[in-house]
C-alpha cells in the first residue's frame, strides 16, 4: 500500500494532476455548477466541456512544443504561425452567398479540403523555415524563431490586408464548433494527434532519439543519430500542430484575426510544457504531462472569468497560481518540508 503510494507520488504525472484537481476544486467551491454537464441540442454542454474545448488549440501546440523543447530548443513563433495559417484558411474559404436550388447558401471560394491542406502546408513551410535556421544555419532557437514571430504576423496581415476575415461557409465551422457523439470535434483532433505522437515516440525510436539529442547532442551524433535532421523535422512538426490549432481557432470564431490570433500563445504553450514536468533544458519529455499542463492553464483562465476576478488583478492571480503550482511541484520544497516534519516529529 505504502509502496504503491510512493510509486504514485514519484510518477511525473502525479503533481501536475494534483494541481489540476486542486484548481477544479477551487472552481467548484466558487461555482457549484462547475462539474454540471447537460445535454443541449444533442451535445454535451458545461464548464468542463468548455475548458476542454478551449484548451484544445493550446494542447495541440504544447505537444509540438514539447518535442521542440525536448531537443533543447524553443519555438516562440507558434503564435505567428497560427495567425498565418488562420489567415490562409479564412482567406481561401471566405464564403460567398449564392442561391442554390432556391435557397441562399454560402459556398467556399476554394474547396474546403484544399483550403485546409493549403493552410497546413503553409504552417509546415513556417516550420521548415524555422528548422532550416536552427538546424541548417545553426542559429540559436530563440532568435531563429523570433524572426518568424515578428515577420509572421506581418505576413498574416498581408494576407488579410489588416482586416478580420470572416468565414461564412458553414461546413468549416464543424472543426471548431461541431460535435461528434456529443463531444467537441476539437477533442477528437487532439486525441488523434496525441495518439499519433504517442505511437511515434513510444513505438518507434523517435522518442529515444529526441531525448538523446536533447540531453547530449554531441554524444548522439557520435552514436550515429542525425541530430540535425531530427531537430529540423521537430520544428516542422511543431509548426504543423500550430497549423491544426489555427484551423480550430479560426473555425471556432468563424474568422481570422491576423493581429490577435494566437497572441502570446507561445508563452502559454511553454508554460504548459513546463507545468507538465518537462525540463526546459531539454531531455526527458512527458506528453501527457503537457496536456495536463495545458488544462491547468485553461482551468485557471476559466476560473478567473467565472469567479468575477476584476480584470485588473487577473495577472496577479495568474502569477500567484503559477508560483503556487511550481512550488507544489518542486521536489526541493517537499524535501524541505519533509525534513522539517521529521525534525518536529522526532522531538515531539
Amino acid at each position, binding site marked *: 500500500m505504502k509502496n504503491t503510494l510512493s510509486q504514485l507520488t514519484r510518477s511525473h504525472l502525479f503533481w501536475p494532476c494534483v494541481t489540476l484537481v486542486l484548481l477544479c476544486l477551487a472552481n467548484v467551491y466558487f461555482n457549484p455548477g462547475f462539474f454540471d454537464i447537460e445535454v443541449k441540442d444533442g451535445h454535451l454542454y458545461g*464548464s468542463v466541456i*468548455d475548458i476542454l474545448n478551449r484548451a484544445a488549440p493550446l494542447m495541440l501546440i504544447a505537444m509540438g512544443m514539447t518535442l521542440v523543447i525536448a531537443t533543447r530548443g524553443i519555438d516562440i513563433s507558434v503564435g505567428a504561425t497560427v495567425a498565418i495559417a488562420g489567415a490562409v484558411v479564412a482567406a481561401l474559404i471566405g464564403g460567398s452567398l449564392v442561391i442554390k436550388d432556391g435557397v441562399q447558401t454560402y459556398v467556399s471560394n476554394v474547396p474546403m479540403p484544399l483550403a485546409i491542406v493549403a493552410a497546413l502546408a503553409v504552417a509546415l513551410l513556417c516550420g521548415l523555415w524555422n528548422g532550416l535556421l536552427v538546424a541548417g544555419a545553426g542559429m540559436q532557437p530563440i532568435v531563429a524563431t523570433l524572426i518568424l514571430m515578428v515577420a509572421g504576423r506581418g505576413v498574416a496581415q498581408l494576407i488579410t490586408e489588416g482586416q478580420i476575415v470572416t468565414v461564412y461557409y458553414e461546413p468549416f465551422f464543424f472543426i471548431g464548433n461541431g460535435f461528434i457523439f456529443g463531444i467537441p470535434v476539437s477533442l477528437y483532433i487532439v486525441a488523434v494527434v496525441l495518439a499519433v505522437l504517442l505511437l511515434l515516440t513510444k513505438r518507434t525510436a523517435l522518442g529515444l532519439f529526441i531525448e538523446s539529442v536533447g540531453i547530449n547532442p554531441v554524444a548522439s551524433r557520435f552514436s550515429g543519430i542525425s541530430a540535425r535532421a531530427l531537430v529540423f523535422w521537430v520544428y516542422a512538426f511543431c509548426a504543423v500542430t500550430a497549423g491544426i490549432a489555427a484551423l480550430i481557432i479560426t473555425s471556432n470564431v468563424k474568422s481570422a*484575426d491576423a493581429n490577435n490570433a494566437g497572441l502570446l500563445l507561445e508563452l502559454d504553450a511553454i508554460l504548459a510544457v513546463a507545468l507538465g514536468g518537462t525540463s526546459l533544458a531539454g531531455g526527458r519529455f512527458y506528453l501527457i504531462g503537457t496536456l495536463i499542463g495545458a488544462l491547468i492553464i485553461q482551468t485557471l483562465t476559466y476560473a478567473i*472569468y*467565472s469567479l468575477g476576478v476584476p480584470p485588473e488583478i487577473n495577472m496577479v492571480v495568474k502569477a500567484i497560481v503559477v508560483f503556487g503550482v511550481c512550488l507544489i511541484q518542486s521536489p526541493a520544497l517537499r524535501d524541505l518540508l519533509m525534513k522539517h516534519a521529521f525534525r518536529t516529529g522526532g522531538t515531539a
Partner: protein
Amino acid sequence: SASALTLGFAQVGAESEWRTANTGSIKEAAKAAGISLKFSDAQQKQENQIKAIRSFIAQKVDVIAFAPVVTTGWDTVLAEAKRAKIPVILTDRSIETKDPSLYVTMIGSDFTEEGRKAAKWMLENVKGQGDVNIVELQGTVGSAPAIERKKGFEEVIKSEPRFKITRSQTGDFTRAKGKEVMEAFLKTDKNIQVLYAHNDDMAIGAIQAIEAAGMKPGKDITIISIDAVKGAFEAMMAGKLNVSVECNPLLGPQLMNIVKDVKAGKQLPKRINTEEGVFPMETAAKEFPNRKY
C-alpha cells in the same frame, strides 16, 4: 518634388480592423492631397512612437501627426519638435500636458462620449421595471479606449439604480477572447439581460457564445457595442446585435486639410471632433452600403 509638403505620421499599430481603416484613410487622403507621407507603425508601443517622432524630426518633415498610444509622456519629445519648429497634430485622442503649445490641434473621437452614448441608448431602449443585469466585456486592460468607454458608460448609468454591471472582464478587444469570456459568464450566471462590449469584435465573439448556449442574441440578451465596423452591421442585419456606437476612423481627408491649414499658418481650434452616429439594429440595412470599413 521639393516643394511638396511632408507629413510624418506615427500610427499606433495595426491592432484592429478599425485601425487598419484609419491607416488606409490617412494614406489615401495624403495621396489625394499631394502630401508626401512618412508613415511609421509603432506596434502599440509608446517608445516606438517616440522613436518615430524623433526620426521625423531628424528627417526634417514639415508637419508631424500621431495617434498617441497613451495620453501621458509626450512632453520631452514634443518639446524637441517645438525646438525644431515642426508643428504637431494629434489624432484619435488627446494627451495630458502642462504646455498646450506643444501641439497645434487634436482631431478625433471621444471615447468617453462613446461610452455615454452606449449607456444612453440602453436607458432609452431597455424597457421594463426589474433590475437589469449588465455584463461588460472590456478592452485591453489599461488601454485608453477601455478605460474611457467604461468611464462614460458608468457615468450615465449611475443615475439609474436598476441598471447594474454584474460582471466585467477583459476580452482584449478580440473575438476569440470575447467568446471565451462570454462562455464562462453564461455558465456561471443565468441572469444576464444586457451585454456591453467595448468593441464590435468582442460582441461578435460573444454572440457566438450566446448562440452556442441555446439563447438568442439580441433578444434574450440585449447587445450593445462600439465601433460600428462592417461585421457589426452584418450582425445587426441578422438581428443579433442591437446597437453599435460609431467611432469613425476615416479622418484622413480632414487631417490633410488641417495639415495644409497649419502650414498656411491658419488659426485652429484646440479640438476638432469627428462626426459620429449611433446605429441601432433597425437602421443597419439602410446604412450598410455606405460603410467603408
